[in-house]
């Protein structure tokens, strides 16, 4: 946070006299200002010989603080933004799209939970392929276990485009593949690094109309978070921060975020989503995936959704190559 000293060039009202006055009350930065009771400070300023100028300075800093938080919107503005900018991205699975009223919604953080080999990665690959072809949007794919398969994506793309002509198919494939940006990450810090870069890119794009990234996939976020959990609050802090960063990206740049979570054995041998109770309040939507051994039919059910009852379920098929 900016020290008051650095604000002087931009705002001449914050001069050395004002800085000294603030320093005498233990205020050196804008952050200190936020922690301080400003009514009290104004009362102290009253006693100073240059009270008018000091109070003007306080108002100025308050105006700076006012720009530090997200804009305050009324319900109509919010709704307009949601209608105009938050589109629904089809996953390409008919059953899932029906269940979720169209698919993954931009602005939301969707979590997909499932045991090992329940089709989580296949779900991600299919969704990535579908968004890249049908919505022509950029997909940022975080892979934590080298499970990403470009061949499989190509296969899905071929199925989606469905064109008989070789050349047309090739063109679609070229375009779709270049729309998917792949990142191999093995620890949470690399993920933060890439996400922050992405945020910077998106912010610089902002003036130029449409933001290109439509979907962020993290397969699997639990393998990044689990190693830092346990032993003190640092791990949990990282987990919650990651959640806030993803939700911020999702809302501000109209991106749908899909994260994958594993399951762990709970009480009585019933498996439950990993990452514990504190994670529960992070995602908007939680979906549970299960898969019967030996068939390619997957079962997906809603664990949590802002506007749907939990427990609703649907079936979908993952086709073999």
């Amino acid at each position, binding site marked *: 946070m900016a020290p008051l000293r650095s604000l002087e060039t931009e705002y001449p009202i914050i001069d050395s006299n004002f800085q000294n006055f603030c320093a005498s009350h233990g205020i050196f930065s804008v952050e200190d200002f936020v*922690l301080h009771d400003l009514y009290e400070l104004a009362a102290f300023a009253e006693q100073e010989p240059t009270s008018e100028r000091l109070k003007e300075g306080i108002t100025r800093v308050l105006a700076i603080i006012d720009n530090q938080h997200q804009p305050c919107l009324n319900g109509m503005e919010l709704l307009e933004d949601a209608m105009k900018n938050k589109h629904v991205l089809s996953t390409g699975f008919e059953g899932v799209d029906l269940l979720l009223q169209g698919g993954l919604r931009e602005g939301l953080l969707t979590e997909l939970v499932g045991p090992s080999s329940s089709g989580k990665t296949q779900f991600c690959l299919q969704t990535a392929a579908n968004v890249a072809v049908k919505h022509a949007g950029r997909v940022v794919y975080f892979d934590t276990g080298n499970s990403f398969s470009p061949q499989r994506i190509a296969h899905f793309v071929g199925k989606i485009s469905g064109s008989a002509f070789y050349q047309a198919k090739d063109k679609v494939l070229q375009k779709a593949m270049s729309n998917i940006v792949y990142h191999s990450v093995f620890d949470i810090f690399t993920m933060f690094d890439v996400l922050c870069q992405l945020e910077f890119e998106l912010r610089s794009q902002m003036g130029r109309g449409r933001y290109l990234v439509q979907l962020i996939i993290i397969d699997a976020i639990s393998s990044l978070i689990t190693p830092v959990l346990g032993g003190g609050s640092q791990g949990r802090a990282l987990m919650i921060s990651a959640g806030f960063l993803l939700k911020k990206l999702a809302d501000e740049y109209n991106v749908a975020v899909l994260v994958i979570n594993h399951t762990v054995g709970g*009480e009585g041998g019933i498996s439950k989503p990993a990452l514990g109770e504190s994670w529960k309040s992070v995602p908007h939507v939680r979906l549970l995936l299960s898969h019967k051994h030996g068939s390619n039919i997957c079962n997906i059910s809603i664990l949590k959704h802002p506007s749907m009852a939990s427990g609703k379920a649907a079936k979908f098929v993952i086709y073999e190559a």
Partner: protein
Amino acid sequence: MTAKGWIDGDETAGDMLSRLLTEQLPFLLLPPLHRLPLRVGNVVELVGPSASAKTQILMQAAISCILPKEWKDVHYGGLGRLVMFIDLDCRFDVLRFSQMLKHRIMEANGLSNEVQWDEKVGDLKKSRSKRKPSISCDEELFALCMRRFLYVRCYDSFEFLATLKTLHCRLQQESEAHGIRFYFLMIDSIGAFHWVDRACRPLPVRFNNRKSLSLRCLSETVVQEIRNLLLVHPMVVIASKAIITVDKNSANEVKWKFGKWFAPDTSYSDNIKSNTEHFKYHEYMPSVWQTFVTHRIVVQPTGSEFFILENVSIVRIKSSQSIYRNGYCHHSNLWTNLLWEMLVSLLYLDVLPWLI
């Protein structure tokens, strides 16, 4: 002030009572909670684990607040006041909110749940109702209500504090623009940044009087700011708080301590553990926040797929007599096939007699 004036006091108890009775507004929480005697200036904490409908309760209360009492000869029973919603969880779904508001408006117009609302065409598909309200009127009311709802989201404690610091001017502007005052300040949820702030260990400060960005100091400032705000804008503060239960009883064997319903209030401690025997959780908010809270509502969903059991405990603290009741209701195969909005409307219609 002269000594005489000081002894005389401000008003008699009778005056005060009549003043309070006229000031008291109908409280707008869902039916089991509407009996909670709340007044402007109270700070209510809505406590419950994840997925216990905390945000739903807030949204319902907000809708009741922004709806007018009457509009074009239709009774809506609302309060016609403004709501400020501070979203710390960043999970507020405006589509859901607008859906619920439309549902309430249609309900008041005597339209049943099954009527399909088609926004694009702007007419009602197949309405069985005798009374057909004009749609333009509804849209107008809808827009009016939505504008009475103010929303801001925060991604960290600093943004939250910056929001609170500058909220006064914003509330003033909005009040003047609408010509009505705020009734609710909602915070969802107050403990959202707990883990991040707890892990943040600020460097030792070089100056004695400089405040550090510690968890305690942040909470103190939050409380102080809300307190300052309440002086200028008398409102009811409702803050939801997600908690981690340490409930040993699983959903299948919930024990009800009926004998404890009107148990005398034991001295209030920082830990709620002793108060509600079947519902235990770790209190993690600093004591400065806890002492700021005047009412605490505990919501807890305890239901397997075929057994719905909602328990609402109201623990009113800081008073010699504790209001502490439990209510429960069994509804087999209700939960599973039910959409959330239907459940919420059932709750609204007081079908579930939670409080006995």
